[in-house]
């Protein structure tokens, strides 16, 4: 584990993906993120952000190229192994409607550690602490997820993504439904939690004002440039 900082959290080379239905393709020559780095990905809708996230999380397979998550060659793994890797190493937050409506807030949070194969006795207190730090008081934990406001739901989604202590956190416009005050609090607590876990963040948004929280950015329109410092 002493050589861990030397292995990039994410490294990809000559990644190509072809989207058949649209006759459209995505080329990403190179992207390397060190552990703990925060990447801001911006681009209009339809620019391939979702595809990129699917590729990074191992859901979609590239037609060529190499992709390493924490040193593991994702492009060589079987779909089952990719799923396991994803469950343990990658947390995902959607734009909205992240939660299973009929499960409680706490159970929604615990889903990720369950899929990552972590024991409940261990993850339960961490989940509660995480929810508290994200501003979700204890009285909300037992409530059904759909009883919460959208802003609260997004924070539960963050808690769920971070609970298994992943290497990589992928967030797809998680702040789009939040007001500016909530959004700033959300960004701070999310990044603080990510840093505390040594978690690399890939954050997709078209909200330029959030750029201030990141040290690297990637423009979907100019993928050939790779990650640029802000």
């Amino acid at each position, binding site marked *: 584990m002493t050589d861990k900082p030397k292995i990039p959290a994410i490294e990809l080379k000559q990644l190509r993906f072809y989207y058949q239905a649209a006759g459209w393709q995505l080329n990403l020559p190179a992207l390397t993120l060190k552990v703990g780095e925060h990447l801001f990905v911006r681009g209009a809708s339809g620019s391939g952000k979702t595809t990129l996230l699917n590729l990074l999380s191992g859901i979609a397979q590239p037609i060529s190229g190499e992709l390493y998550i924490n040193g593991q060659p994702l492009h060589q793994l079987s779909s089952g192994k990719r799923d*396991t890797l994803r469950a343990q190493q990658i947390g*995902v937050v959607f734009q909205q*409607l992240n939660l299973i409506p009929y499960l409680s807030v706490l159970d929604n949070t615990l889903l990720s550690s369950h899929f990552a194969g972590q024991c409940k006795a261990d993850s339960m207190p961490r989940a509660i602490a995480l929810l508290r730090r994200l501003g979700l008081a204890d009285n909300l934990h037992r409530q059904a997820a759909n009883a919460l406001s959208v802003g609260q739901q997004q924070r539960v989604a963050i808690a769920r993504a971070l609970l298994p202590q992943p290497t990589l956190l992928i967030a797809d416009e998680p702040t789009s439904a939040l007001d500016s005050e909530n959004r700033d609090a959300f960004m701070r607590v999310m990044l603080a939690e990510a840093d505390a876990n040594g978690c690399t963040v890939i954050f997709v948004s078209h909200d330029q004002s959030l750029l201030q929280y990141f040290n690297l950015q990637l423009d979907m329109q100019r993928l050939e440039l790779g990650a640029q410092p802000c």
Partner: protein
Amino acid sequence: MLMKLARLSLWNRRGTVLMTWLSLTISIALLLGIDHLRTEAKSSFTSTVSGTDLIVGARSGQLNLLLYSVFRIGNATANISWPSYERIIKHPQIAWSIPLSLGDSHRGYRVMGTTGDYFQYYRYANSQLLNFAAGQPFNGVFETVLGAEVASKLGYRLGEQIELSHGVGAVSFSQHKDKPFTVVGILARTGTPVDQTVHVSLQAIEAIHLDWQQGAPIPGRQLSAEQTLNQDLTPKSITAFMLGLKSRMATFTVQRQINEFKQEPLTAILPGVALAELWQMLGMVENLLLLISLLVLLAALVGMITTLLASMKERQREMAILRAAGAHPWYLFVLVQLEVLLITLMSMISAAALLWLGLYLLQDTLAAEFGLFIRLNIISMATLYWAGAVILLAAFLAAIPGILAYRKAVADGLTVRL
């Protein structure tokens, strides 16, 4: 967690789940019920009479004779004269005989005139003799021995006085009011029509009909109970009789000799053969019913899968969230399977309860109307086989929405298409 997900997901869709549950419950209850009735009817029928080599009655079909002599269903076409009976039982091969005289009733229960030999030789099930729960066989003319069912249903105790009615209806307009009978014995439960029979002596049957003619009392010739005792009470005729032979090898010889009896047209049947024939007839119908209930079950299962398939569309988001949280596609497959399993298991439990309740309520009617003695215990190897088959079938059919969930999860990835 998987269990919790399945449980809460079902609860979340409780409206459609409830309907599915209901239809499955009814169809499983139907299937198990028909199968249970089938096996119970068979054992009930075949255990009714045992150890009797021949049953003899007036010439008729063997089923008719079997039904009225053993099951107390229907009526005899004609009687056997007493002298003929006395002649036949002198046959050297005959070890014992039980004469039966039917035609009267007590509050819907058949009255059977017989002799003390009945309690000594009649066997049922696995060659079991009749046992007395209380009292003893009748000795006097106006004494009676009740079947277990008669005593318990009508609440009779030893020493009680009962009146017999002419004819076999539950409500009779002509009563043998003037000659009450004393209960001297109550038989232990047998699970055969014996439970529903009021036993009296042949002399008693003769005594209550002394002042009757053509099925009605003779006006102006009423005899009191005491007076009848002074009369000749030798029966003039009986309805049927059962025979036990010294050697079973002689069965066919004796049967042929009785069938060729010159003085009177008689029929002798082998109860086992007649029971088998009766069973074959009923068995066909019940196989058909079983087939129909299987189809009903299949329809209910297909209905369940249809509702599941319909719900898969609205659950796409749910599945995508699970995928994003790290679920393997097969996890979703297992989730769908587990939901189906839960519904099926719940339905089975409620079906068993429904069936038990139904049998509990219908038990007496079935026994009284059809001579079918159905036990309430529906758990048997056959039920377990059926339960297993239902679960396998459900799991097999659930693979359709399960595979759909799996493939959709693989194809859609983390995106949720609204």
